[in-house]
């Protein structure tokens, strides 16, 4: 039990460290944000005044402390560039990303798990070979390329689905979902490949264990034997799945870029292009938090599925 509290604590520490690291980086860069925001012709005194307003004259540590206190109090400040409320921007973009990434994972699980299981149950069969080819291709092919290809051939060529990935729900459920099909397919197929590989490996490992032989020796029907193996094969897969959810935000970034989906990852990319440091700070923090939460969720899931871990060491 304490293991998990400890891991959670370290995750929080990691979060602070990351935020500090990014904060430091943004202040190490030569040239101040003022040069980005203000006109090049602005007189010197105005620049200095602007900088003082934004606390840029204080030492980095102090600036960080101020930022930290503000953030923990819920005040995320304003974007230097757009001057929109950061919290508002996040509130707008997070659900978008969560929705389409979530759907992708749903697709990945629904397709990937059975594929991996069947592959393991019939190793060497044509199903297995095809599944493994799909899996290797799925994890190796860059998502942004798949996305572009899908847009080029399916959206433009065939015209089945729109090339833009985001249509708000207010425009109707049909168009909303239809726009999501291609991005969800892109990310979903990738993770289907990942999951099917891990499921296959894990299931094969489980099937080679002694207890499977005992189960057969006791005359249990095949489906029950496979369930025995599956119950042991799932925890590592759940683990990988949850960690992948965290990693998926990087992939999401590329896909949102291609499809123009105004989600969290694209917000980060835009912030980087615009040198909007507060926004960069905050989005990295949010994405890292989600990643950490996903890992914790994986650990908790392991705890639930694997009775051995419940014993204290």
């Amino acid at each position: 039990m304490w293991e998990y509290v400890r891991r959670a604590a370290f995750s929080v520490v990691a979060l602070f460290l990351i935020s500090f690291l990014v904060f430091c980086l943004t202040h190490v860069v030569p040239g101040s944000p003022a040069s980005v925001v203000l006109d090049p012709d602005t007189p010197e005194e105005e620049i200095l005044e602007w900088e003082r307003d934004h606390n840029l004259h204080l030492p980095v540590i102090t600036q960080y402390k101020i930022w930290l206190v503000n953030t923990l109090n819920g005040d995320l400040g304003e974007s230097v560039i757009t001057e929109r409320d950061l919290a508002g921007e996040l509130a707008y973009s997070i659900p978008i990303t969560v929705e389409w990434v979530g759907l992708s994972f749903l697709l990945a699980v629904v397709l990937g798990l059975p594929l991996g299981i069947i592959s393991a149950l019939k190793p060497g069969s044509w199903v297995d070979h095809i599944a493994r080819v799909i899996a290797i291709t799925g994890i190796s092919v860059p998502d942004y390329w798949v996305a572009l290809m899908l847009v080029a051939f399916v959206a433009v060529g065939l015209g089945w689905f729109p090339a833009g990935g985001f249509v708000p729900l207010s425009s109707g459920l049909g168009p909303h979902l239809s726009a999501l099909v291609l991005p969800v397919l892109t990310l979903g197929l990738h993770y289907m490949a990942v999951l099917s590989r891990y499921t296959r490996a894990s299931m094969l490992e489980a099937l080679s264990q002694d207890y499977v032989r005992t189960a057969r020796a006791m005359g249990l029907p095949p489906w029950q034997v496979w369930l025995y193996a599956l119950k042991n094969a799932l925890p590592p897969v759940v683990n990988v799945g949850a960690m992948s959810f965290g990693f998926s935000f990087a992939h999401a970034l590329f896909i949102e870029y291609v499809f123009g989906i105004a989600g969290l990852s694209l917000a980060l990319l835009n912030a980087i292009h615009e040198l909007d440091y507060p926004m960069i700070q905050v989005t990295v923090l949010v994405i890292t938090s989600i990643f950490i939460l996903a890992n914790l969720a994986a650990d908790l899931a392991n705890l639930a599925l694997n009775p051995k871990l419940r014993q204290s060491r």
Partner: protein
Amino acid sequence: MDNRLLEVSNLRVAFPVGNAMAEAVRGVSFGIDTGDAVGVLGESGSGKSVTALAILKLIPSTGRITEGSVRFAGRDLLSMSEANIRKLRGRDLSMVFQDPLTAFNPALRIGRQLLNVIRAHTSSSIQNARARALEVLDLVGLPDPARVMRAYPHELSGGMRQRALIGIALACNPKLLIADEPTTALDVTIQAQIVELFHKLRTELGLTLLYITHNLDLMAELCDRAIVMYAGNIVEEGSVTDLFQSPRHPYTRMLIDCVPRLEDARNRELTVIKGMPPPINATNRGCLFSPRCPSVIDRCRVDDPQEDFEGERRFACWNPRL
């Protein structure tokens, strides 16, 4: 002798090694009657475990039963469909494996695993199945059956786990129990307890037992008759008394001699069988034991030994000790 409980004839089992098939079991024949306790004695690699697995048709999928027949209660097992033999496994014909920790599913409670077996073979209600489960756990000497039912395998001690495993094997009243080195993974004191449990099961239930081991003493305690295997062949068979007092085959003789006894003189050298058992794909002509045999004669290296019979005994040696 006609309606023996188990009749194995000329069983041959082969596995792929490199590009060829190698025989792990090379023409094994023996029989067991109801009420018998037969021991199978041999080193690692003698083919004893593979024989047992072959009887239940549980050899790994890479292997193949290339020849022979196995008849159980008059039925031919090898030609049976998988569905039919599944009905026999765990019910009429049960097996207990060597390592009780890995034999159980670590993710399920013992009770669940026990119930699954009972309900797979009988159409009992849950209550009856539970009652039978508790009964069986008590039968194998577990002090708190209800607690064991709720426990996960890793929560029990080695001895308790093995008892539980035996319990599962007995849950549906099998006609024959095959025990493959059931005590090898346990401490010596626990070993004795398990052997005693088997003893009790034999006397109280009249359990028919095929007991596979490499430990002569344990086998001698439990079994009336024994089969000695070497490199996939049966080299000798007979009553335990006969085997110990007047072993015919040199291998049997040396096995017995190898075990140090308290009564032996302190400065007596330990008897050792020089050399190693042949690899699975050995194809030498003649007796496979000849390279290590102290009483080897020329014929041994050329002709495969023929079986000689002596009443209830048999042995396969050109130069037996008489």
